Each structure stands twice: as C-alpha cells, then as structure tokens.
C-alpha cells in the first residue's frame, strides 16, 4: 500500500512536468502556426543556390 503513495506523487510530478511543457509551448507561440514549419522542413536550399549568392557579391547575408 505504501507504494501507491509514491506512485501518486510521481504521477503528480509527471503530469505537472507535461503541463509546464505545454504552457511553455503555448506561451512561445508554438501552436499559432501549425502549417508553415511542416513545409519549411522540406526545403532543400543549400544545394541549389550557393553559387548564385556569391555572384550577388555576398555583401549581406549574414
């Protein structure tokens, strides 16, 4: 029976842990745009355009 007390506390902390993660994600706006990141991850830029950028005299892109 003593075990269940420990489990109770553990479950509380586990739930609080996930709650905190959720609140952090909500506060930092991760639920705001659920579409663009899924597209962004698929870009294959670097292969395509490096040479081109050097021709543009590379003065900016930092």
């Amino acid at each position, binding site marked *: 029976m003593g075990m*269940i007390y420990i489990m109770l506390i553990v479950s509380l902390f586990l739930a609080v842990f996930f709650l905190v993660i959720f609140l952090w994600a*909500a506060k930092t706006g991760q639920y705001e*745009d659920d579409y663009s990141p899924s*597209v962004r991850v698929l870009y294959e830029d670097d292969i*395509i*355009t490096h040479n081109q950028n050097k021709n*543009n005299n590379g003065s*900016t892109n930092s």
Partner: protein
Amino acid sequence: MNERATTDSMVQEDITTATANEKEIDQQDPNSCFHCHDAIIDEQIIFDRKAFCCNGCKNVYQLLSQHHLGEYYLQDEQAGIRPSTSSKESFAHLDDPAIRQRFIDFQEGAIIRITLHLPQIHCASCIYLLEHLSKLNAGILQSTVHFPKRLATITVNTDVTPLSDVAVLLTKIGYSPDFSSNKKNEKTFDKRLLVQLGLAGFAFGSIMLWSFPEYLGIDSTYKGFRNLSAYLALGVSVPVLLYSAQDYFKSAIGAIRAKTLNLDIPIAIGIVALYARSVVAIFSDEGPGYMDSFAGFIFFLLIGKWFQSKTYQWLSFERDFTAYFPVAVVKKDVDSTVLCPIDELEIGDEVTIRNEEIIPCDSVLLSEKATIDYSFVTGEADWIEKVKGDLLYAGGKICGENASMSVVKTTSRSALTQLWNEQHSKQTELAFQTRQDRISRYFIAAVLLIALVSTIVWSFINPSWIPEIITSVLIVACPCALALSVPFTYGNMLRKLGRKGFYLRNTSIIERIQECDTIVFDKTGTLTEQDTKNIEYIGEVLTPEQIETLIGITKHATHPYALAIHYWLKRTHHLTGKAIDAVEYPGLGIAFGETMKLGSAVFVGTTNEDALEACSFVTWNGAVLGKFVFKSTLRPDLKPLLTALAKRHQLAVVSGDKPRDLELIKPLFPEGTTFLFEQQPIQKKAYIDALQATGKRVLMVGDGLNDAGALNSAFVGLALSEDLVRFTPASDCILKAQNLSYLSDYIDYIHGGKRYLKYSFAFSLVYNLTGIGFAVTGSLTPFVAAILMPMSSVTVVALATFLTLTKKLRPEKEG
C-alpha cells in the same frame, strides 16, 4: 489558324494557340498557365518551353528560375498567383521615417524588421517563395511566414534595399502587401484559452487517475489514501475553478447585472454546485467528491470554445471604408512635396493622387482634367471625365494621369464617411435574443423551480437528503449539452460553408440568415458581370487596313478594354497582327499618330449619347468610325437560383444604373418582384431601412463600397467577391462570386441547421428530464449525475458533427 511566329522586343517567343500541343511545351495542360494555372485565353506566351497566360506570369517565372527557385512549383499544385502591376510610388510612404513607424516592428540603424499582411498567401509554395526572398534581393536578410495569419516578417537592410522596393518586389511576385488592416496587433489566436484548456485537461486527467481506486470501490479502511488523493484533487482543482472557468463566471455575473438570463448562468451555477458539493465531501472525509467530473466538465466546455475560435480565426470582416483609401498621399508643401497621412490632411491642402489611387476626401480638381472611376461609390462601371474646378468626391479612383486637387472636406467629414457613420451599426444585435438564450431562459427558470420544489417536498420526507438532491438536480440539469450543441453544430456549418467559398462572420449570422424573409439584390456586379468577351461594334464597316492597325496598336496595350478588342478582332477576323508602336495614354486611350485613335469619348473628341455604356471609340484620320460596346452579361444559372430563393423569400432589386437592363433581368424574377433603378447609395440604404421598418428581415446581396451602407443596414449583409482577399466591404458574410448560383443551396443548408439543432436540443432535453426524474426521487447520487453529464455532452457533439458534415453541398470542388 497557321503557325506563325512573330518576334519582337517584348515577347521572346510568341506562337498562336493552335500549335500548342506539339512538343514545345513540357507541361501537362497546355491550356492553363504554368505559373498561375488560369486558363489561357486567346494567346499563349511560350517561354522556356512552358506556356504562360500573360507577360506578368512569364516574368515571375523568369525571376524565379533565374534565382534557382524553381522548386517553388513543386511545393504545391496551385502555386502561382496572377501578378499585378504596381509602381514604386504607391509604396513611397514606407520610405518616410515618420509614416512607416506605424508599420515596422523594430529598427536598428539601417536594419528594419517589418511584418506585412499578405492576403494572397495560400499554399506551401507561397511559404517557400516568401521565405527565400533573400535570394531575390540582396537587401532582404531574412523572411518568415506566419501562415494562418497571412503575415510575413521581413528583415531588410534599407541601405541596400529601401522598404518600398521590398513592397514592389512582393507585388511583382503576386503578394501585394495590405496596409489597411492592422492585423499584427490583433490577437487572432487566443493563447489564454489554450492555457485554460491545458490546465483543465491536466486537472481532469490527474484527478481521474487518483480517483481510480475510488471507482473500484475503495472504502474507509484506507482512509489515509483517500484523504491524500482527495486533497490533491482539491489542490489541482483550484486553478481550474479560478482560471479556466473564470469566463463563465464573468459572463454569468455580467448577465445578472444586465438583468438577463444567458446560458452561462446555469453553467456557472452547475459548476459552483458541483465544486461546493465536492469541497464539502472532501472536508467531511467522504473522499474526493466529484472533482473529476468538475474538471472534465470545464475541459469539454473549453474544447467547444476553442473549436469555435479556431474555425474562423483567419477571416477579418471588420473593415471600414478607410481600408480602401491610401494611408498617405503626396501633399504639396510651399515648394516641395511631402507625404502626409490622410487623417492629417486639412482643408485647402493641395494633394496629388496618382493613377489607380483612390481620392481620400472631397476635393476640387486643380489639374486641367482627370478621369475618375466612381464604380465603388455609384456602382456604374463607367469612367467620368472631370475638368479643372470640378468637385471630386471621396472614393473615386483616378485612372490615367496624376491629378492634383485641393481638399475641401477632411476625411472624417466626407460624403462617404457620412453614409458610413449614419447609425448603420446593427442595433438589432442587442434586441435580438439568440435562440439559445431564449431556451435557456425557460430552462434555468424550470430547473431552479424543480430544485426548489424538491427541496420543499424532501423537507417533509427526509431533510438530511436535501443537499444531495439539490446538487444532483442542478448537475444533471446543467445544460452543458445545450451549450455545446450550438457552437459545434454552427461551427461545423461555418467551416463547411467556408470551404465552399461562403464565409460568415460568426455563428449568430447563421441564425440571422434563418430569420430573413426578404432578399434584396444589387444589380451591377451582383446579378451582372462585365464581360470583356461580349463585344459589339457599332459604326462604319472597318476596312482590312483599319482592322490590321487596330490589332497592331492594341497588341501591347495594358487597358483591359483595349486587350479585349485586340483578342476579339483577332478571333473574328482570323488575323495575327504585327505590333505597331503606339502611344498609350493611361486611362484614356491609344493613339497611333493622328491616323488612328482608340479610347474614351473625350479622348477621341466626341460625345457618347448613352453615358452609362461601357465602350471605346475608334477614329481614323480624325473622323469617328464607330464604337466597341462592352455588354454586361448576367451571371450564369440565375433563373434556378432565383426560383429556389423565391420559395422562402420575397425578392427585390435595387440598382444604381439606369433601367437599361430591366428587360434582361425581369424574366428571371418571379412575379411581384420590386425593381428600383437609379438609386444612390443613400437611397439603397433608405430602401432597406423602410423594408425593415415594416417588420421585414432583409438579406442584402451586394458587391461593392457603393452598397456598403445598404449592406450594413440590412439584417444580414452579404458581399459578393470576385477575389476573396480584396474588396470586401464590412459585411456579415462574403460569398465567392462564382458560387452565387449555389446561394439557395447554402441558405437551405443554413435552414437545415435549425433542424440539426432541434435534434441536439431534443436529445439533451430528454436526457436532462430523465436525469431530473431520477434525481428528485433521490435515486441518483451526485456522483452518477456527474458522470452522466460529460457523457451527454460527448453524445451531442458527435450527433451535431455527424449531422452537419454528412450533408452534401455544391460545388464538388472545394476552395
């Protein structure tokens, strides 16, 4: 037609349509533009073995492929947007440090971060392109897209690229920034609701877990454990009560203060009863009470709310007429010109309005002459010539050369503003009790009465049971299923209609449409559309030489009329004319020396008897040959639509035009339809008001700013839009113009919603009555009542979703 290639400076390869299928083109459908996917009318422009509908699309493709951004077309089937032309001047206000302050987020030296609202963002390719702006322009350091809000945050080095160049670049690739709505300051997504939801979900899950032994029938032998879980549950329930549920309490208290009943009152009482009963249970060592049901209840309620807010977060209808006006105009200052925000204009200021810009306030024309398109204000598709000294009203669009004018009324006092500010706001909003509130008013009265009666009865039978009974009655009667059925049923309907191109502002508009008994149509732009393909030539017969010349001089014209004449002549005479160098006067016409002129009546030096006709005159060596008349044609499938609508509604037509098209539209309407012509915007509004004064509920279907007053006065204002992102005057709903013929289906569907809601209400009523029956006899413990409560909600939600989403709606194709 023969294959005949012509080469000139503008177009690299130019082949007539008939040869399209030969292997020169690497794309599936040679009849749709590779870039914007519009159907190619009349003439393809072939470039890099791909077919384009216009030079603009070709240029965008060229721009993208030069910078190796060809992947753009792989991101989404419907990638491109038809580009529009624009000048650097129209974005000049972005380079003025004082004015741009309103738009930019952050500035450090020459580095500026700006968030722009780009309403044309619509697919994965858009994100791809906009996030690679740095490849198109060296001055752009970084760009990030926020898809649901249609925002792009762009970091620019203004030493390299001024902000106006960024805006021009965006416009050139098809994303014209919209400065009118200050979207970035709006919170379209409610973080607070998300936090409330998260908290409630956390508490719900945790308490259920801890209550599990309780469900299995743990008894007082394990007192220590029961107490621990009970106090833990009490602990996590406090933030749920104080934070997650606070909106219901606020709303209930607000309603009580205003001496009305709303649905949040029974919900708030139910929450309090459940919570108080559980707290009592915990402190009297009875176990965790009903905290699990309490948290679950709040959790389900918030899910309904979240669903509601999520459905339409991206549509903003609240626009006023100032959205159409430029944010700043060029003002003449002693001997230089400065940019001046339009709210700061004063009487007597001299301003210059450029081609395609809208006159922000009533002014007197100072230039020799100006051509103005008043179609926003009067609904007439024609241009009006004004000469020096004429009064120009706000809302007119300058076509052609720049015009300078002197302000006589400031913006807030202009004629248009008056129309708008004239108590157009929906006063009915307050008087209108939504069905939900009406029902719940009886409902809560009945529930309170039942609770009271059973208290009295039980005080004779067994007074010690009274708290249990009251709590059970209040919990089981809590109309949460009722509360959820409306947002879910109507929320689903909004979503479904939205996918068909019919956008409603919120769920209360659905109920308003159900109440409408009269539909008033505007004519121009609503029932008819300007069709540039339906051209008639009236006048002397043209000689082959004249036709050749006409085709030649219109070849590179920019005005739609000239282009339409070009294609029409080519089609009817089977010719491919060579381009002839001619001078185009923007907004007026085209001149080929003195030999040939094509343009407006004033341009060619004649007068038109019918001032309302849309036409272009043609002259040959100074003599007028004739005119090309553009007919307005009716939108397709009006007859079945109007017949279907007439079953439920009375119909009327109000138009700003002369009764020229009466013969055309009269047969479409059923007997007894009212036709009113030559109505000024203010008269349209007055007509609507008069109808509503007799107790009618009017659905006004209009298209433009000239209907804005009427749209606003009407019980429901429906704006037709050719292009959903632009030109949507403040209205209750927006309908894609090409889906107008399905309007009757949509209205039927909306009326069907009432039935779906009745099913849901009936279900929850039966549930509640049965529950109350058991509760008052004392055979239902609060615990069972609290378990039943969320279950009924889930059932109602499932029912509402099923009923609304299974119904088929035209058109099949969505979007």
